[in-house]
């Protein structure tokens, strides 16, 4: 199988290694679902955990003047109001970190990458203990969503 398309496979692996080194987000790739199925599964998983989607930005459409033929790339800005209330109580300026982002993008045909913001890194400059704890919980919840995307497919 390797012989069929070695170049493509190599690039794909290279990108994946790179994504594992990224510090500020956690990424996972999915090969057996369409872009819109993944988006739908993420939204369902978010709703179950009381996260609201405050913004759905299709970057490929937003940047179409600058980039022609950009593959589908969506930013979801999501917020759990209970966590937001606690974060703002602990540090009033922490609103600059809110909401949390999840990105969904097509990396190559049939290969979709989902990245969740790692709040333990992106909220770290606040330096309050309570925000650190909230960041840990938030990243754990968002990680569950990454693993649930596949499980939902199994149920169908």
């Amino acid at each position, binding site marked *: 199988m390797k012989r069929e398309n070695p170049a493509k496979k190599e690039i794909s692996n290279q990108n994946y290694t790179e994504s594992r080194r*990224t*510090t500020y987000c956690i990424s996972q790739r999915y090969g057996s679902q369409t872009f819109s199925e993944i988006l739908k599964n993420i939204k369902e998983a978010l709703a179950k955990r009381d996260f609201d989607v405050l913004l759905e930005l299709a970057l490929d459409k*937003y940047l179409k003047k*600058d980039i022609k033929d950009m593959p589908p790339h969506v*930013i979801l800005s999501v917020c759990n109001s209970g966590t*937001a209330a606690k974060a703002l109580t602990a540090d009033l300026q922490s*609103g600059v970190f809110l909401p949390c*982002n999840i990105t969904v993008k097509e990396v190559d045909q049939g290969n979709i990458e989902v990245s969740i913001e790692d709040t333990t890194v*992106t909220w770290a*400059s606040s330096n309050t203990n309570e925000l650190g704890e909230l960041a840990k919980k938030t990243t754990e919840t968002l990680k569950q969503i990454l693993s649930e995307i596949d499980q939902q497919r199994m149920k169908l």
Partner: protein
Amino acid sequence: MEYYFAKTVTGEFEEVIKKVTNELEKEGFGVLTEIDIKATLKKKLDVDFKKYRILGACNAPYAHKALKAEDKIGTMLPCNVIVQELENGRIEVAAVNPMASMQAVKNKDLESIAKEIGDKLKQVMDKV
């Protein structure tokens, strides 16, 4: 490094929001989201909170540059500007310092983009 630039102004809350939005536009930022924290917390949790608005601002050509330098930077877009009520009718405007947020990314190409975006946000802060 401070993770935001802040400034205190006087005036009517909605007027300050309009002013911030206008100044952002002059620097090429569109406001993609406006989150009314006071209204959201009241509605979702029945909690009383002061007037507090988060503006999600994005400058498309810079977003493009940033994505070219770092393919997953979408997880950190857009840039936030907060407008919140203080006591005695004063209002604080705070913008995220992209230089501080991008420290976590450890990408040299992104640093210069973050600096330019930071300078633009500072311009906005100077003018409101």
